[in-house]
């Protein structure tokens, strides 16, 4: 299990950060997309989604800075 930090560009160039814990990168992408889906009333289109960093421990986190 690891922590994964993502950035996604949605409609109107809105940029969001997502952090998920997952067993593998493919699962992390899937979970990140799910987190986006559940965070908006109107489903946004995901134009870009990028995995920027991973941490092996699931304890801890990331500081989300302007990208």
């Amino acid at each position, binding site marked *: 299990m690891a922590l994964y930090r993502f950035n996604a560009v949605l409609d109107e160039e809105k940029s969001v950060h997502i952090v998920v814990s997952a067993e593998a990168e493919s699962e992390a*992408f899937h979970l990140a997309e799910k987190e986006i889906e559940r965070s908006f009333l109107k489903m946004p289109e995901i134009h*870009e*989604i990028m995995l920027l960093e991973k941490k092996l421990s699931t304890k801890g986190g990331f500081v989300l800075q302007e990208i």
Partner: protein
Amino acid sequence: MAYTKHWANQEKLSKEEKAKLEKDGLDILDDIPYYARNGFDSIPKEEWSFFKWAGLYLQKPKEDGYFMMRVNIPSGVMTNEQLKTLAGIAKDYGRDVLDITTRQAVQFHWLQIEQIPDIFDRLEKVGLSSVGACGDIMRTIVGNPLAGIDPNELLDTREIVNDVYHYFQRNRDFSNLPRKYKISISANVDNAQNAEINCLSFVPAVKVIDGKEVSGFHVYVGGGLAAKPHLAKPLNVFVRPEQVKDVTIAVTTIFRDYGYREKRTRARLKFLMADWGPEKFTEKLSEYIELPEKGEERLTGWNAGYFYGVHEQKQEGLRYVGVNVPVGRLHTEELYELVRISDQYGNGEVRTSNSQNIVIPNIPEDQVEAMLNEKLFEHLLPEPKSFMGYAVSCTGIEYCNLALVETKERMKNVADHLDEALSLEVPIRLHMVGCPNACGQRQIADIGLQGIKMKNKDKKMVEAFEIYVGGTLSESAQFNEKLKGKIEAGQLDGVLVQFLQVFKQEKYRGETFHSYYQRVGLPHLQETLDEILANNVAVN
């Protein structure tokens, strides 16, 4: 000399600090023979991190039980016997590969616990050691790869480096530092040591004392890269050569006793320096050792640790030859050829540089041509092209648990492609890294390429890169800056060719990439990249 761990009763300590109070990192050396006899499964998981003190990391996936071993090469100086031993380890245990690191050390991969005692024996017999190459301890000492042969060095630093290295090797007074601790000692006037990115650096300087000019060092403290890079700051002191060890002991004691142990993320010396500043640090240092104020610094520029080609040594009639090792990776047959060639034409010595390349010293002038006719130098080029010659890469996803992308082979392929597509009269220092950490020193590159994973327009997960520009440790030292936009790995060659074609068209004759970056500014480089990306060459 025992010391009191005054932090032992500190209320808040990181879990790593608590573990280090229970067991010193060097104790793992006593445990390794047992684990070697009983196999990887006999190693409790909570012991894994202590292997760092022995210079061993578990490769990914950790559960498979393969180790990476880093071996200290202080100042990069290796005897023929040492190189032969390293070649033998690569051949017998390391799947024929040895990597040169950005701190002049070397690394093996694919080692198993059962093999470690024999590897330790082999290393010890020739005076080498992996102890302290990783862990919260003084790491291998970066130095001048030309020490003792450098016509421009202020003084020969080999003895000083050896003295400091042997004092700190397995020294339990300094085996429990708050975090990793990287030092450099060099009198090379071109800052081959990358002084500003070490925790502690001794750089060449002179001072008139009692009417006589004394050659010695200035001291920089608190540099480091990683997620929060920081340039080391100069202290207002002058150090005589014979004082280097005592000053190192003093600074290391300050780090040991005042460095932050509550939060591991703030434990590097750079955080203490950021809080204290150079004045307070100098004042604290004066409590340990009396030193005069600064003299005159003798750094004249920055060569980033590159020494390509044939050059005169300070010894008349002798030459040193710097050759390129593509992304720092050597194979067994190349290593054995180096052993033979350095012995046949020189005195057997080979030296590593922190640009991941090698220098063969002590070649008689009339032997140089014959040596360079050896087949090995068709691959390890003394005059490499602008890109391959200056390409640096971290280990990448092949072995590293944190990397998101492959780097070593890709960096080689990208550099090859750029060399075929473009000819430049100035080198471009390209550094490729697989994550936001700093093993490939992305922050000081002309062009840094940092790996990410992304979903492309077909919704497929692909490897990609972000671009950073303008890093340098020359007089106007600065870390590079990020350009917006991401490039799918498969399109990296094409984008870089176009980006650098613009550089080629717009640069003045002889202008370096950093000077160009300073002249045209970041917005112009961003516009250039935007235009390339908008032309659908890359995934934007």
